[in-house]
């Protein structure tokens, strides 16, 4: 019901990134790798929200689901707490495989990589199908456990991009949490800290778009306010 200008811009970025990565990708692997590392060091998980093709794929799935008015699948708090260690387990598995065995296990769980590789075994197709299904029902479900995302997330705390909050003016209306694809509870609950950048945050700015209170949530880059929440409620299409 609100304007989604930032999201529109972000989808554009993702689209351009996909085109660039697919057409130029193979020749410029090293450059892309360096860029990705640099961006992680400086902007944390920003890459996830604006570049990663798998993130884009998941967003397209969610967009389709929302168009069809199929409800989001919400995991209960208990299940969530059981799933919490999973992302670390996957990260350790990923790192050991890459560092010690030269394997790229991520190929098997990332649909984009699997699709682009030549040999499609039944095993792969099933995995891709399951991941796609889960990501269709839950926005950015894969991102919650993605090892690359977890790695970048470690740099969110020192990132130059920050999500900030004016706690007293927050009405606890929950709009931000409901829209957050990464289910970050602290953006909604926090009242005392002003820097609320979470290590899971992909800087999608959906919380800022959703928040109906003037200037309560904002995004700052190098300490300068770039975006902030507004009460500009637009009609539903």
């Amino acid at each position: 019901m609100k304007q989604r200008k930032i999201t529109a811009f972000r989808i554009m970025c993702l689209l351009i990134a996909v085109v660039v990565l697919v057409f130029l990708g193979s020749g410029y692997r090293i450059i892309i790798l360096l860029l990705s590392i640099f961006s992680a060091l400086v902007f944390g998980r920003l890459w996830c929200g604006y570049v990663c093709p798998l993130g884009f794929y998941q967003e397209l799935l969610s967009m389709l689901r929302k168009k069809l008015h199929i409800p989001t699948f919400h995991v209960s708090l208990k299940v969530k707490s059981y799933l919490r260690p999973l992302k670390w387990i996957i990260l350790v598995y990923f790192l050991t495989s890459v560092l010690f065995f030269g394997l790229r296990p991520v190929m098997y769980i990332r649909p984009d990589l699997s699709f682009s590789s030549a040999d499609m075994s039944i095993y792969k197709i099933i995995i891709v199908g399951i991941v796609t299904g889960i990501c269709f029902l839950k926005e950015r479900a894969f991102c919650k456990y993605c090892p690359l995302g977890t790695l970048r997330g470690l740099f969110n705390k020192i990132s130059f991009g920050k999500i900030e909050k004016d706690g007293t003016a927050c009405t606890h209306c929950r709009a931000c949490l409901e829209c957050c694809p990464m289910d970050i509870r602290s953006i909604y609950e926090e009242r005392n800290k002003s820097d609320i950048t979470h290590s899971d945050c992909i800087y999608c700015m959906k919380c800022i778009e959703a928040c109906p209170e003037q200037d309560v949530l904002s995004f700052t880059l190098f300490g300068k306010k770039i975006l902030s929440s507004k009460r500009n409620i637009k009609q539903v299409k």
Partner: protein
Amino acid sequence: MEERTLERYKRNISRVSAGSLKQLTSTGNVPKGLEYFTNVLKRTFVDFEKDDNEYIGSYCVMVPDEMIYAFGYRPLRLCAGHSVAAMIGDEIVPRDACPVLKATAGFHAMRVMPIYQQCRLAVLPMTCDGKRKSAALLSQYLPVIPLPIEMDKSEERFAQNLQNMHALMKSISKETGRRFSNRKLIESCKSINAAQQEAYKLYGLLSSDNPPVTGSQVMAVLNSYCYDTPESWAQHAKILNAGLSQKAAAMQPLKRKKPRIFIAGSPITFPNYKLPFLMEGLGAQIVGDETCMAGRLLYDPVVPDEYSTDGILRALTARYVCACTCPVFEQTDDRLSSLTEKLRQTKAEGVIYHILRGCTPYDFELSMVEQLADKLDIPVLRVETDFSAEDAEQVKIRLEAFVELIEQRR
């Protein structure tokens, strides 16, 4: 009830309501477009007009109007503020219960207001003890669906509240035999949203440095929303806002600024505008309020992430329960922060803490609000009263002293 007594009550109700309406429009400063809203109230409370809508009654602010519209009914806020009805309700509910309950029960028992008779059923949220217990009393008059509300705002309880909303939808469907439609739900979200946008502008105009409208007028405009459709209300509120903005631009700054008063506490419902009228009579400007029938009625918007029925119900639960600052919840920080913010925005110089006799939840939180106001260096005056005009003189004397205090502090 005897025919003659009933007639007398009817006349009295009309008279009291007409009196309040007259006072609203007698300030010599009647904004263009206000008449539509006073007419809505007049139709309901003075002329007792019948219409052919079917209503679903509700209490408090936790029952989503959107849901009621989605079933093709019109919502009707049953919380009443009428002194005559409260007098009659005195015999139905306990003496120490709050006058809102008395008046509501009174209206049901008297059967004078046609819209109360047009209620197909009532959805009563289990909020304060009085409302909880009065559900059984009201079930003598019409079918009642109780809506349990978790009084703990934690994440665990959110899931429960959401389930309660789903269950409410099923209960309404079972009771009325009507199917609910997702399309209508989206439409009602849309029109209520439009009304809220206008309400937000109106709140802004009232809290401006030199408001072009009085607090009681704004309260009446907002209150009339309960007896109108959101579409029509929004359309006329737009006209009112446009007129007020124009007027504000043309207004000369006052030489002597009026004392700016914020009203906190128990609900103030038409026609019981005793407190705002007295304040305004003493030359004060009401710049805002946190009552559930005015300042909070149309404040928080519904922001769904997706428009499936579950998605909208989540957003409704978030807006109607999580953002709610009623004193019945365990956590008080939401109310205190929202008060802090509102006092800052409205640049209030004094807080009138209104307590309806018998409304303990608000009275319990008084000390916390006093502490907060102390920190902000704003004086607070607790006024305990009910709907009758008997104590008007006494209240006036206290308010007078308070206004004087504010002027001295400048």
